[in-house]
């Protein structure tokens, strides 16, 4: 920072260190930001199951379905009213990408991640699961959460 001694000279703060620091912070936040989290509805209250395994990446393509307490299905921030149409379209796209035929099992490369609110009724969740099964998804991951204080 250069200060002024004479009356006519303007004070000129050195902004380089602060700019460096801000860029470092931006870099940090961009690295830790979870892009996958955008597909997850963070307002859901997941079921509390004490002995479930911590969530890990399976390396499979994931179709994430959020089901709220009223039974509405939220996918990528949009409420889907035609869930059968949606999963059928997803299945067709995956088959097209992977060169699979209609009716082939999709469970070798794709997993359906069900994030259901614990206040939902079973029939709401089952309707979604059944729609997925009908189009060839047979591998499911049911997301839960840990009891308070028992997180790994």
């Amino acid at each position, binding site marked *: 920072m250069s200060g002024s001694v004479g009356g006519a000279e303007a004070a000129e703060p050195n902004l380089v260190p602060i700019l460096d620091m801000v860029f470092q912070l931006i870099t940090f936040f961009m690295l830790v930001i979870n892009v996958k989290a955008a597909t997850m509805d963070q307002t859901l209250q997941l079921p509390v*199951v004490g002995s479930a395994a911590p969530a890990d990446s399976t390396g499979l393509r994931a179709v994430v379905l959020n089901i709220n307490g009223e039974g509405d299905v939220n996918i990528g921030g949009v409420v889907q009213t035609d869930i059968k149409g949606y999963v059928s379209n997803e299945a067709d796209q995956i088959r097209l990408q992977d060169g699979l035929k209609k009716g082939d099992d999709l469970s070798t490369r794709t*997993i359906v991640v069900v994030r259901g609110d614990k206040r939902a009724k079973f029939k709401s969740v089952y309707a979604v699961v059944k729609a997925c099964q009908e189009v060839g998804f047979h591998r499911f991951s049911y997301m839960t959460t840990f009891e308070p204080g028992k997180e790994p």
Partner: protein
Amino acid sequence: MSWRKRKGHQHEEVTLNLTAMLDMAFQLLAYLILTFHSPIAEAQINLRMPDPVAVGGEGSAVIGGEPQRHDPREYPLDQLVVNVYSDHAGGVGQITSGTSSKNSKISELTASGTLEQKVGRLHHHLQGIFGDPGQPFDKMTLQVSGDIAYNDVMQVVDACARVNLADGKRLQNVTFIELPAGNK
């Protein structure tokens, strides 16, 4: 930032105004901080769920809303069926298990007590069946009343998913069917 630039014999000072860049960087930083969510610890229960085969008889389960009635001789021999009925409050009531329309009731084990106790007894019961090498089962169908809370159903599913088969592997072939309304 400033540096000296040689131009002929004269020394001219070039000053770069960083204020605008700093403003933009601060705005970007503010956005990232405001939209940042710390990751929540989540767990998962992984299941392989083949297409369900409804079991008729007493429960006469439904697939796609249509009542299905199967000849007991058509039931897969390696599939154990567990029926989970709701109580009046939308929780887990009675639980029965069996392989055919003549389900062997285990209501003495699971009709009373807290959810935790019921789930514990169910797990113990299932472990005894699936852990026995003499039993043919390696799949399970959960027939569940539709009005039970999802949280309670997941406690039952967890009890099933923790069961070890006779070969030491975890039971993963568990599929669901919704019991028709009024089956309590």
